[in-house]
C-alpha cells in the first residue's frame, strides 16, 4: 500500500480514476485500513491521555478515601445562631426570698418522697425474688424435669412491648383532627 501512495503523488493523470485513493487497484477491495501517519498519532495520544486522566482520578479517589471520615454534627447539641440574639432574652422580675425558701423546702420534701419510693420499690423487688426462689426450690423437690423446664430462658418474652397508661381513658368514637406530618430532619452520610 506504500506504493499506491507514491503512485498517486507521482502520476496523477496517467493512473485511471479510482473511486478513492485508498484503493490500491481497480479490482481489489480495500486491503487494509487507511494508512497515514496522522491517525496513528491521534490514537496513541488519545490512549495515553485517557490513561493519564484515569490515573489522576484514581489518585484523587485514593487521597479522599485515606482522609478520615467527616464527623456527623449532632443537631441537638449545636444551638442555632438565631437563638443567641440578645433581643430574645426575657426580662422577668427577680426572685423573692420567699420564693427561694419555698423552692428549697419543696426540693427537700421531694427528695424524701423519692427516697421512700425507691426504698419501697427495692424492698418489693427483694420479696419478689425471694418468693420466686422459694417456688423454684419447692418445684425442684417435686420433680427435676419440671424444674429444668422452668429454668429455661423464655425466648418469646423480649422484646416486650406494652402501651403506657394515659391520663384519661380513650374516648369511644373519637375522630382525631386530620393533618400531614412532613419530616425535615437532615440526613448525613459518611
Amino acid at each position, binding site marked *: 500500500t506504500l506504493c499506491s501512495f507514491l503512485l498517486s503523488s507521482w502520476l496523477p493523470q496517467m493512473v485511471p480514476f479510482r473511486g478513492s485513493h485508498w484503493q490500491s487497484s481497480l479490482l481489489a477491495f480495500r486491503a487494509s485500513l487507511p494508512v497515514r501517519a496522522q491517525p496513528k498519532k491521534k490514537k496513541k495520544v488519545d490512549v495515553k491521555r485517557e490513561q493519564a486522566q484515569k490515573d489522576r482520578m484514581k489518585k484523587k479517589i485514593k487521597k479522599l478515601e485515606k482522609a478520615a471520615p467527616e464527623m456527623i454534627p449532632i443537631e441537638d447539641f449545636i444551638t442555632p445562631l438565631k437563638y443567641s440574639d440578645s433581643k430574645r432574652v426575657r426580662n422577668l422580675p427577680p426572685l423573692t426570698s420567699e420564693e427561694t425558701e419555698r423552692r428549697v423546702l419543696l426540693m427537700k420534701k421531694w427528695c424524701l418522697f423519692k427516697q421512700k419510693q425507691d426504698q419501697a420499690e427495692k424492698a*418489693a423487688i427483694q420479696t*419478689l425474688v425471694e*418468693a420466686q426462689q*422459694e417456688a*423454684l426450690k419447692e418445684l425442684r423437690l417435686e420433680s427435676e424435669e*419440671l424444674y429444668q*423446664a422452668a429454668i*429455661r430462658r423464655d425466648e418469646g418474652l423480649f422484646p416486650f412491648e406494652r402501651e403506657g397508661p394515659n391520663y384519661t381513658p380513650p374516648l369511644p368514637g373519637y375522630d382525631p383532627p386530620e393533618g400531614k406530618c412532613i419530616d425535615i430532619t437532615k440526613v448525613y452520610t459518611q
Partner: protein
Amino acid sequence: IELEKSHYSDHEMRKLEEEEQLRRRKESVYDDDEAPGKTVIMAQDLEDKWEQRLLQFKAAPRVTDADKNNNRTSLNRKLDSNLMLLVKQKIGDQELWLLPQAEWQPGETLRGTAERAMATFLGDHIQAKILGNAPYGIYKYKFPRAIRTEDNVGAKVFFFKAFLQSSDLSQAELKEDYLWVTKDELGDYLKSEYLKKVNRFLLD
C-alpha cells in the same frame, strides 16, 4: 411554661413585634400603605383560636360508671391500678374464691398448665402474655385427713403472672362467678394464708 431558663420562641417574637406595630400605628398617624392584607392573621388570633379548640375538647372521665356502681365484674374499673382475675372454684367440698387454677397433667410443663387454665377460664382466643417459664410464688397446703392417701398428703399451687394484651373479653366464656379486683380488694375474698403468699409476688 418554663420562663426562667428560656428565651423567647419564634411565636412569642412574632407576637411582640405585632404588638409593637399596633402600638406604633395607634400613636403616630400612619397612612395605611402597609395594607391590612399584609398581617391578616395575628399571633394573638392564633392563640385565641387554639384556646377555643382546647375548651371544646372534653376528655373521657377517669372514674368510670363501673366505679360508681362498684361493679366488680367489669374490666373498666379502677383504671389507674392493676386488676387481677378471681374465680370461684370448687375444691374438695368447698367453694372458694381463688386465682384461676388447673391441675397439672403429667407430660406438660407448668407453663403449659397455666396456659390451659387461662384457656379454660377466658376462652381460647385470649391474648395474654405469660412472663417467663418460672413460677412466681407457691402455696402449699395439706389435705384434710379424710382425703389424705399415702402419696398425696397435700398440694402445691404454683403461680404464674400474665398480662392481658387486649381488653376485649366479649368472646370470653366466663361461666362461673368471676371478679376483677385490685391488690387491696384481694383481702375481701381470699383466705389469710393464701392471701399472704399471693401478696408476696404481686406488685400494685
